[in-house]
């Protein structure tokens, strides 16, 4: 303490404050996160090793080791849900990121009405997910839907498609609705990234003899890399954990064919009251999300820090 106090320009009161003030001010945030996130998380991890079934209560809720996990791996529905979740996530991520890149590039160009176009293209962000699900369900309606009308107008189909009843078409319909809703945020983030790339870089690349494709690859995409990496990670996690769109549009049907892992957890817990099994299923979702994050960090963050 003596040596620290003798540092010139250091005020005693400031030194005293440094001891406790930072810890005191971070306390509220930590307290909230611990009670509502960390403590329940530990509880649910423990629950996943116990026999908890509110429908047929088992006295004492005994520890059953990995039995919940073993049952999960045995059920075909688990593998079906995993497959649905992966397809759904990948499709939405590709559609939003590629679509967002195209739209952001268009909005970065100068043209008449650009301000209006920007304002309009961000609108889906303001539509609540529940409403998005309802409106798109109505648009995909078998008998009276406007999507079927448009497809028949374009002669792409010759009779109405029954989207929600066909297991192969229900998921694509939900994917379209989700991508529509997610596009604006991707566009905003990528547009901000594009605008942070200095025009001088393009000039320099031009002088060095880079053609348009090379300029796109080495200036635009390279400049977007940090933003694009963050966007990919967030989009992947969000869609992997997404509940509302599938629940609202198909409810996991027909015959549980579009039931994602998260929708599965919801039904297992709040319809069949198999809390232990649902906890195990939820834990698997968490583990997959952690794995996704680690892979992204390796691919996008580690190389950026090296260079």
């Amino acid at each position, binding site marked *: 303490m003596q040596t620290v106090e003798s540092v010139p320009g250091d005020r005693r009161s400031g030194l005293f404050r*440094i001891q406790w*003030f*930072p*810890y005191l*001010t*971070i306390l*509220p*945030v*930590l307290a909230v*996160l611990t009670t*509502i*996130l*960390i*403590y*329940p*998380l530990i*509880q*649910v991890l423990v629950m996943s090793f116990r026999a908890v079934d509110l429908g047929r209560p088992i006295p004492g809720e005994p520890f059953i080791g990995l039995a919940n996990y073993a049952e999960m791996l045995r059920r075909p529905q688990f593998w079906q849900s995993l497959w649905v979740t992966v397809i759904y996530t990948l499709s939405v991520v590709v559609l939003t990121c590629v679509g967002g890149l195209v*739209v952001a590039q*268009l909005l970065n160009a100068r*043209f008449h*009405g650009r301000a209006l*176009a920007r304002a*309009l*293209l*961000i*609108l*889906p*962000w*303001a*539509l*609540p997910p*529940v*409403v998005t699900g*309802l*409106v798109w369900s*109505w*648009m995909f309606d078998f*008998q*009276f839907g*406007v999507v079927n009308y448009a497809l028949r107008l374009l002669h792409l189909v010759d009779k109405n498609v029954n989207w929600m009843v066909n297991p192969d078409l229900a998921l694509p319909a939900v994917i379209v609705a989700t991508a*529509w809703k997610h596009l604006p945020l991707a566009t*905003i*983030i990528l547009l*901000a990234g594009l605008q*942070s790339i200095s025009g001088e870089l393009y000039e320099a690349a031009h002088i060095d003899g880079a053609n348009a494709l090379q300029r796109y690859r080495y200036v635009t995409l390279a400049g977007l890399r*940090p933003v694009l990496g*963050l966007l990919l990670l967030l989009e992947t*996690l969000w869609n992997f*954990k997404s*509940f*509302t769109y599938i*629940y*609202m549009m198909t409810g996991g049907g027909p015959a549980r064919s579009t039931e994602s892992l*998260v929708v599965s*957890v919801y039904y297992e*817990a*709040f319809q069949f009251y198999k809390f232990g099994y649902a906890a195990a299923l*939820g834990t698997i979702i*968490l583990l997959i999300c952690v794995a996704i994050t680690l892979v992204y960090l390796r691919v996008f963050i580690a190389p950026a820090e090296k260079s």
Partner: protein
Amino acid sequence: MTMPTANVMRMGRQSDQPLARQEAMRRNAAIQKWISRSLLYLIVLSACGLVVFPFYWMFVTSIQPLEALFRFPPFLTPVHPTFESYVAIFKERPLARWMWNSFVVSSATTLLALTLGSVGGYNLARFRYQGKRAVEMLILSTQMMPGVLLIIPIYVVFLKLGLLDTLSGLVVAYTTFSLPFCVWMLRSYFMGIPAELEESALVDGCTRLGALWRITLPLSLPAMVATSMFAFVLAWDELIFAVALTNSQSVRVVSAGLAGFNTGYTIPTADLMAASAVSTLPVLLLFLFTQRYLLSGLTAGAVKG
């Protein structure tokens, strides 16, 4: 800078090439430009059309009588516009109650998340202390947690605390879920405001809290607005906790109300779309008023990471 060079080059070419060829090249360039312009407008227009159409369709559906809706091909413009549905949803359904509940929950969530988020974000932006890295990692790692995983234990905890089937329970849950993002966004924004501004206020006799209140908070208005908007919309939109943690009509929020709208044998499409439009309106208005701040507030956080 580039203009004079381009002029010199053009003048140089002028003397080398015959006039006719030069004219042809100019016309070619003009045609090319015209084509790429038209293509740009075409793509932008179709993108705007795709984005706006569901909004338009929601509204058109909500003002049509049922017999005009259940036909194929559909009427793309309303034939007998009526606002019956808008009356019906308030008379026959507790939409006003749902909206009020959502409004209370979202406002309380916003207030709490913004207060806690400012303190936490300021802490992470300005102080250096042992264990700060761990706090940051904790906040970031919460983004990986699936909400559905936490519903089960939160259900049990709320049951014990008497928070089940109450609006306060929803406020507690939503504040927690929006908090990590709020802290992070405000942290990024505070870091962009020079600490020297606060230090000079301290020298002028301001307290630390006074400096935060008078200098830093007013300067970070865009981030404050964006953060509030984020928390409000998160609470307004959320569905899975709303349906799992509440059950009574008196505490039903609008997302849960809309999700449980189709209970009868016939689907009241016009009413459903009218209720959808009404429930979208507050968010849409808020969004239009705050759009200016939203872009600068959000993107500052996004780009700096």
